[in-house]
């Protein structure tokens, strides 16, 4: 789950990390009011920042500097309700629903600071770089020596000397060095406290008067911890998520929308990915990734079918269920039940394997509904591709 910048900054502040003064607005008038307040307090300009769950906003025109409250209002009007296209969104972009208005900062140095999971070392890692403001992936590719890392021992947490080592490594000395080391410890603590998968400050700036300030803020929460974090669930912005993905998650299904024409319903994530790959090999393109789970029941299959049929540009459906614990006859009943209730105007290819698959295939063949049955995965994919054309 991703948080907005303004939500992340509030959490930063609670942790003691300094952020620019500002406020969030969802109308141009509200933006102007925030800006007036900031100019009144001595700001010489304010930043207007689109609040969307995608990075690279600057490149898409989602961050603008205004030198008067009127200009802030104007920029806000230009952003709200429009689609912001950034290098991280698709060509359709994402809808801007609110903006963050912040006092402009006097930047002396821009740094990068992040905490994430190091999967190979199986612990958290703090990543710092003197190349602030650039995407860290680009720094890693172009200037890997500019990236510093400190692993966080799961038993002990990040130590003070590690934070100092990073701050010195960034070329800082004196007051900024101490300030940065403190922020590094605070950020590592926040990562742990929030059950996050990523916390990132890019850029972390040193101001002309030696203050260390988080100019940007990004927090991703581990979806697996939401059961124990009602406080974080409240921060979820469903309007940023795909409608079908949200509906699927309500039925405990995993759905990812893609832009192809063949709808897929598969049990198990690995098999679902392999089915998509097989469709591509056969010359087609998958419309979605849909995992009904390793122990799918007739009901989950029916729900999955309803969601699947709502995908745009759908030209064929491929159902691939490898019965293990899940029984083929139950799956077949689910499919028959779903097709009875949902209008299906595209060809459906079904492949059932494993436990009670024979019985399942018999049920499907005896039903009045139209299916194409397939034995192997590549046969199923080829048939679906053929029928989608």
């Amino acid at each position, binding site marked *: 789950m991703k948080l907005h910048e303004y939500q992340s900054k509030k959490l930063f502040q609670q942790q003691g990390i300094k952020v620019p003064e500002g406020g969030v607005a969802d109308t141009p008038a509200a933006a102007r009011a925030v800006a007036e307040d900031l100019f009144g307090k001595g700001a010489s300009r304010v930043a207007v920042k689109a609040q969307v769950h995608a990075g690279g906003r600057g490149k898409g025109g989602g961050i603008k500097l205004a030198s008067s409250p009127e200009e802030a209002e104007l920029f806000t009007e230009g952003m709200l309700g429009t689609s912001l296209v950034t290098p*991280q969104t698709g060509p359709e972009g994402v809808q801007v629903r609110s903006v963050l208005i912040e006092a402009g900062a006097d930047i002396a140095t821009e740094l990068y600071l992040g905490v994430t*999971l190091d*999967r*190979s070392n*199986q*612990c*958290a890692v703090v990543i710092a770089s003197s190349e602030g403001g650039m995407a*860290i*992936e680009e720094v*890693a590719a172009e200037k890997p020596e500019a990236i510093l890392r400190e692993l966080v021992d*799961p*038993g002990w947490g990040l130590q003070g000397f590690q934070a100092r080592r990073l701050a010195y490594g960034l070329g800082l000395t004196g007051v900024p060095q101490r300030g940065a080391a403190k922020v590094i410890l605070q950020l590592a603590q926040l990562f*742990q406290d929030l*059950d996050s*998968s990523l916390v990132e400050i890019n850029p972390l700036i040193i101001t002309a008067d030696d203050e260390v300030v988080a100019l940007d803020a990004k927090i991703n929460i*581990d*979806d*697996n*911890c939401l*059961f*124990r974090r009602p406080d974080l669930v409240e921060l979820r912005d469903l309007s940023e998520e795909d409608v079908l993905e949200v509906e699927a998650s309500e039925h405990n299904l*995993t759905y*990812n929308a*893609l832009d192809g024409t063949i709808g897929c319903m*598969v*049990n*198990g*994530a*690995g*098999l*679902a*990915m*392999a089915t*998509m*790959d*097989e*469709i*591509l*090999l056969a010359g087609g*393109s*998958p419309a979605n*990734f849909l*995992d009904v789970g*390793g*122990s799918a029941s007739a009901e989950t299959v029916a729900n999955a079918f309803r969601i699947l049929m709502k995908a745009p540009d759908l030209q064929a459906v491929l159902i691939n269920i*490898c*019965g*293990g*614990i899940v029984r083929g006859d139950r799956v077949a009943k689910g499919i028959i039940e779903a097709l009875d209730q949902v209008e299906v105007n595209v060809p459906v290819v079904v492949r059932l*394997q*494993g*436990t009670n698959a024979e019985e399942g295939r018999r049920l499907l063949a005896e039903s009045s509904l139209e299916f194409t049955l397939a034995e*192997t*995965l*590549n046969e199923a994919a080829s048939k679906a591709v053929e029928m989608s054309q």
Partner: protein
Amino acid sequence: MSIMVDGESRIVVQGITGSEGSFHTSQCIEYGTQVVAGVTPGKGGMLFEEKVPVFNTVSEAVEKEGADVAMIFVPPAFAADAVKEAADAGVRLAVCITEGIPALDMVEVVAYCKSRGTRLLGPNCPGVISPGKAKVGIMPGFVHQEGSIGVISRSGTLTYEAVDQLTRLGLGQTTSIGIGGDPIPGTSFVDCLEMFAEDPDTKGVVLIGEIGGTAEEEAAAVIADDYPLPVVSFIAGSTAPPGKRMGHAGAIIAGGKGTAAEKMKALSEAGVTVVDSPSVIGQAMTEILSG
């Protein structure tokens, strides 16, 4: 032979009275696995299916029934504690089936298991089966057959596909291991490769990977260093878009890293036969072993 579990393994099931736990325990018993105890706090003293004693703690199960392997079906909120309990009680292997455990809990659990000398398999995995000897997990027993191929996979159902092919082709499996789809797994591909290399009956290894992380690249490095067995591999997720979590918590291409193409390249360069369709895994292994 086999690795990890065999006919001598004595299993304690944590969460044996839950709906998943009880169903799969019955299946394991039916397969012939020695399930010697169950654990559900508060239900100590009862008998599961009128024969398997249930205890309040894992240490009692270890003391009284000599359990050496734990199979864990405890819900995500309590699973981290359950794995630690198993490790502290001294089981040599803890198989955690549970899906949805917070990643930071797993960071702690993995470190804890290492400190106690317990091997953790999973979480979010189908478990491990040594066909004809013991099934410690949720995989369908009947597609497996005792044989000569070691199988290692991050996926569940995709593994059953590969296993089914190996069975039909008469190769069978020594042991088939699901290491799970989470970002912080207790056992890695590398761990399994090393164990299979020590097993005299394993003649070849099938490695099924997927997008996300660098576990496949680490496996490639071990294989490139004179690995004694032929390896056939399939990597799922060539068509997966970057930044999207594909069902498994660990299946995500992050910052352009963890793509199927990178993994296939690393494995090919290490001498692995990388197939582009899971339908031909068995066939590829047959060709290698007969050629």
